[in-house]
C-alpha cells in the first residue's frame, strides 16, 4: 500500500474569490525527484502549503505512508518526514546559524531546555552534509542570500526526512551553487529520500527531475515521466500556448549613447566600471552574487552614491545622488526583490502603477485628476495584460508574474530614457517570462535604453545585444551574444 511517500488526493482549496486548487492529485514515490511545474498562480505553493499542514484543504485528503489525513498540523507533517524549504527560506535572521539549524530537531525531540553542545553538534553535522562552510555563531541575517538558502537547505537535510519539498530553491543561487545543490539532491535520492521541486528555470528542471506534475489554473494537466516531455510540450502544458523564443536583434542600430559611465567606483563593491548603452540597445550584465552587479544598479539609480567616476545621460554629465535625481534624468529601476522593494502589496494595483508618475497626474492646484489616473491605469493594465478583474484590487491578489508586470508598468508610465532591471524574471513562469521579454524588446525598439542584470544566462543571451560579465567588482569580460555560448559565459563568471 505504502508505495507512495505521499499522496495528495483531489485537493481543493480556495481564497477570497479564487479557487486556487480545483481537485489536484499528486503522488510522490520514495526516492524520486519530482518536479511540480505551472505558471504563476497555478496553485503550486498552495498545494505545498496543504501538504505541509500550513493550509487546511476544503476537499480531498493527504496520505503519508498510507495514513490518511483530512487535516494536518505543520509539526505532524514534519513528524511524517516532510520538510519544506520555502521560497523565503523561513529563517530567523536575528539568530545564529547554529540555532537556525538546530531548532527543528530540538523541537521535534520535544526538548525543553537549550543544550548548546548538542545544538552545535547537530549544526555541524548539518553543514557537513553539503560541505557548507559557515561560522555557526554568525547571525543569519548578516549572511549573503545564497548562504541563507544553504542554511535552509541544510536544515531540511539534517532531518530524517522522507520527502523534501523545495519551492524555487535555485532562485538566489549561482550556477556553481546550483551544481552543488544538484549533487546533494542526487545524493539524497541515493539515500531513498524523495524530492519535490518547484522551479521556473527550465534547464534545471529538465536536468534533475524524473517525473513531472504540471498544474494550470489549479488543475492537473500533466502527470508523467520527464522523458515523455520536451521543451515545447512542456511550455505548452504550462501555458496552453505555443512559445517560440527568438534572440534579440536591435532595430535601431548605432544610435546615440543614452547612458555612459566612466571609471565608476563604489569602494568595497565595484571599481573602475565603464560602459555605455545606446538607444534601442539592451545591455546584459551578469555575474555571481557579490560581484557588485546589484550595487552598480543601485548606484545608477541613486540609492547608493558612488565614490568616484562619471555618469553621463544623453551626453550630459549628472551627479546622481538620490532616486529623485535619477528619475528626473529618465532612469527607472526594477528592483531585485519585488515584494519588499518594488511593490506596495496591500495597496491597489492601480496605485502601484501610478506612484512613480503621480506628480504628473494632477489637474489644477495640484489636485489629483481621477480621470487621468484611471485612464493611465487602464492603459497599462491593458498594455501589459495584467490579469486582474479590477485594478482597485490589492496588489497581493496577483501572482508573481503579474506582480512583475505591475512593477514594469510603474516605470513605463514614466517617460524613461534608461530602464534598469535587476532580475527581470525572478520567480516568473515561462509564459510570463516570454511576455516580459517580448515587452522589453518592443520597448528597446521604440527607443529605450535597457540594462538587465541577471544570472539566468539563457535569458541574458536571448535578450541582450551586448553582455558584460562582472567579477569581484570589475568588468571582466564583454561579449556579443552571437559570438559566444552559454558555456563560455558561465565559465567566465566564476
Amino acid at each position: 500500500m505504502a508505495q507512495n511517500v505521499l499522496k495528495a488526493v483531489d485537493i481543493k482549496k480556495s481564497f477570497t474569490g479564487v479557487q486556487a486548487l480545483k481537485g489536484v492529485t499528486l503522488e510522490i514515490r520514495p526516492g524520486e525527484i519530482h518536479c511540480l511545474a505551472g505558471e504563476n498562480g497555478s496553485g503550486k505553493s498552495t498545494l505545498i502549503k496543504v501538504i505541509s499542514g500550513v493550509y487546511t484543504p476544503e476537499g480531498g485528503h493527504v496520505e503519508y505512508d498510507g495514513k490518511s489525513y483530512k487535516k494536518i498540523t505543520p509539526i505532524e507533517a514534519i513528524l511524517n518526514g516532510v520538510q519544506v524549504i520555502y521560497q523565503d527560506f523561513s529563517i530567523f535572521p536575528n539568530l545564529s546559524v547554529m540555532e537556525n539549524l538546530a531548532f527543528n530537531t530540538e523541537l521535534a525531540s520535544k526538548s525543553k531546555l537549550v543544550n548548546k553542545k548538542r545544538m552545535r553538534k547537530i549544526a555541524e553535522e548539518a553543514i557537513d552534509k553539503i560541505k557548507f562552510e559557515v561560522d555557526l555563531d554568525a547571525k543569519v541575517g548578516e549572511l549573503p542570500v545564497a548562504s541563507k538558502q544553504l542554511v535552509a537547505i541544510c536544515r531540511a537535510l539534517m532531518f530524517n526526512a522522507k520527502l523534501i519539498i523545495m519551492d524555487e530553491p535555485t532562485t538566489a543561487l549561482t550556477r556553481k551553487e546550483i551544481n552543488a545543490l544538484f549533487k546533494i539532491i542526487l545524493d539524497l535520492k541515493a539515500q531513498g529520500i524523495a524530492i519535490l521541486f518547484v522551479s521556473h528555470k527550465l534547464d534545471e528542471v529538465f536536468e534533475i527531475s524524473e517525473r513531472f506534475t504540471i498544474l494550470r489554473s489549479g488543475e492537473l494537466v500533466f502527470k508523467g515521466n520527464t522523458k515523455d516531455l520536451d521543451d515545447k510540450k512542456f511550455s505548452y502544458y504550462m501555458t496552453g500556448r505555443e512559445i517560440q523564443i527568438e534572440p534579440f536583434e536591435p532595430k535601431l542600430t548605432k544610435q546615440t549613447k543614452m547612458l555612459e559611465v566612466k571609471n565608476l567606483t563604489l569602494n568595497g563593491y565595484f571599481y573602475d566600471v565603464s560602459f555605455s548603452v545606446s538607444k534601442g540597445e539592451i545591455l546584459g550584465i551578469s555575474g555571481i552574487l557579490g560581484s557588485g552587479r546589484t550595487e552598480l544598479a543601485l548606484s545608477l539609480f541613486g540609492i547608493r552614491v558612488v565614490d568616484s567616476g562619471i555618469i553621463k545621460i544623453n551626453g550630459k554629465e549628472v551627479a546622481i545622488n538620490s532616486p529623485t535625481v535619477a528619475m528626473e534624468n529618465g532612469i527607472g529601476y526594477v528592483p531585485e526583490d519585488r515584494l519588499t522593494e518594488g511593490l506596495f502589496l496591500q495597496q491597489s494595483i492601480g496605485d502601484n502603477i501610478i506612484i512613480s508618475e503621480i506628480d504628473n497626474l494632477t489637474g489644477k492646484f495640484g489636485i489629483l485628476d481621477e480621470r487621468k489616473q484611471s485612464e493611465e491605469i487602464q492603459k497599462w493594465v491593458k498594455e501589459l495584460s495584467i490579469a486582474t478583474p479590477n485594478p482597485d484590487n490589492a496588489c497581493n491578489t496577483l501572482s508573481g508574474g503579474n506582480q512583475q508586470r505591475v512593477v514594469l508598468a510603474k516605470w513605463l508610465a514614466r517617460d524613461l530614457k534608461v530602464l534598469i532591471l535587476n532580475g527581470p524574471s525572478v520567480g516568473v513562469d515561462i509564459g510570463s517570462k516570454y511576455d516580459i521579454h517580448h515587452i522589453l524588446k518592443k520597448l528597446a525598439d521604440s527607443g529605450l535604453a535597457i540594462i538587465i542584470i541577471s544570472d539566468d544566462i539563457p535569458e541574458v543571451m536571448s535578450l541582450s545585444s551586448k553582455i558584460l560579465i562582472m567579477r569581484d567588482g570589475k568588468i571582466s569580460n564583454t561579449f556579443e551574444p552571437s559570438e559566444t555560448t552559454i558555456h563560455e559565459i558561465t565559465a567566465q563568471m566564476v
Partner: protein
Amino acid sequence: MSIRLKKLLRHNEFYIFVVILLLSFLIQSRSGQFYTPNNIVDIIAALIVPGLFAIGAFMVIVSGGIDISFPALASLSIYTTTRILVDIDYQGGILLPLVLTIIFGAVLGAVNGFLISRFKLQPLIVTLGVASMFRGFMQGVLKSVQIAVIPKGMSEFGTSSLFVAKNMETGLTSRMPTAIIILIITLVVVYFILNHTMYGRGLYAIGGNEISAERAGFNVKRIKFFLYVMVGIISSLAGLIRVSMMTQCHPTNMLGMEMMIIAGVVLGGVAITGGAGTLKGCMLGTILIIIVQNSLILMGIPTFWQGFFLGMLIIVGTGVSALQVKRLNSPKKGKGGDKYA
C-alpha cells in the same frame, strides 16, 4: 584581544554603560553625592519596581510585540489583593499576598495573552484597550480608593531591609529593601528562560520571524499566551513591591509609567521591532532612566527644567543608538559586501 574589543564596540550595551559612567561622574562632580554607599543603595532600591516592569516589557518587545497595559494590570491586581486582605483583616505574613498577586497577575495577563494569541490581534491595540478596561474596572466597578493602611505582612515586607548603608560623612543611611531579592530572582529566572530554554529561544524566534517560527514547529500561540501570563505575573510582583514599600495602596499612581519603561528598554539597545536585545541591555537602559529621574536635583537642575532634561535624554539617548544602528547598516567600506564564503 582586539577582536574582543571590536565585538564590545559593536554592542549597544557598551555605549549605555559608558553613558551611565559619564553621567555618574557628572553627578558626582556636581554634588559629591553619587558614589556614596547610601546613594548607590538608593538607586538600586529605586530600580526594583521599574526594573521588574522593564523585564516584562523587554520580553514582550523581544517577541515582536509591545505591552502598554502593565501598569494598569499591576494596579488592578495589587488593588484587588490589598482590598481583599484588608477586608478579611488579614494578619499573616507576605506569603498569601504574594500568592494572590501572582494569581491575579496570571489571570489578567491571560486576558492579554488570549486576545493576542487566539485572535492574532496587534498587541499595541489589545493592550491599549485592555489597559483602559482594567483601569475602568478598578475605578468603576471596584470603586477603588486609596488604602492607607495595608496588611502588616505587606508593610513589614516592604520596609524590611537586608542591610543598611551609611554615608560616614553625612551620617545619612539607606536601607537595601528585602524586595531586591524578588528582582534578582526574576532576573535570574528570566535570563535562564530566555537563554537556556526552547521557550525563551522561541520568543526570540517569533520576534525574528513569526511565520518561520510556526513552520519550524514552535507553538506560537502557546508561547505568546504564556508570555503575557508571565508578564502579568512579573508586573503584579512589581505592584506588590511598590505598595508594600510605600505601605499604602494608591490605585492609580503607577499608571503612566509605561512609556518611560519602554523608553528605557529601547535605550538599552532592544530593537523595538523585536527579535534582538539582551536582558543586560534592558537593565542598563532602565538604570540610566532611573538615575536621570532620580538625580536631577542632585545635579542641581531646578524643578522647572526637569521635564526639558528628561525629554532631551530620551531624544539624545535613543538618537545616539539609532544613529549607531544606521551606521552599522550602512555599507562598510573595504569589506566584500555580499560575498559568499
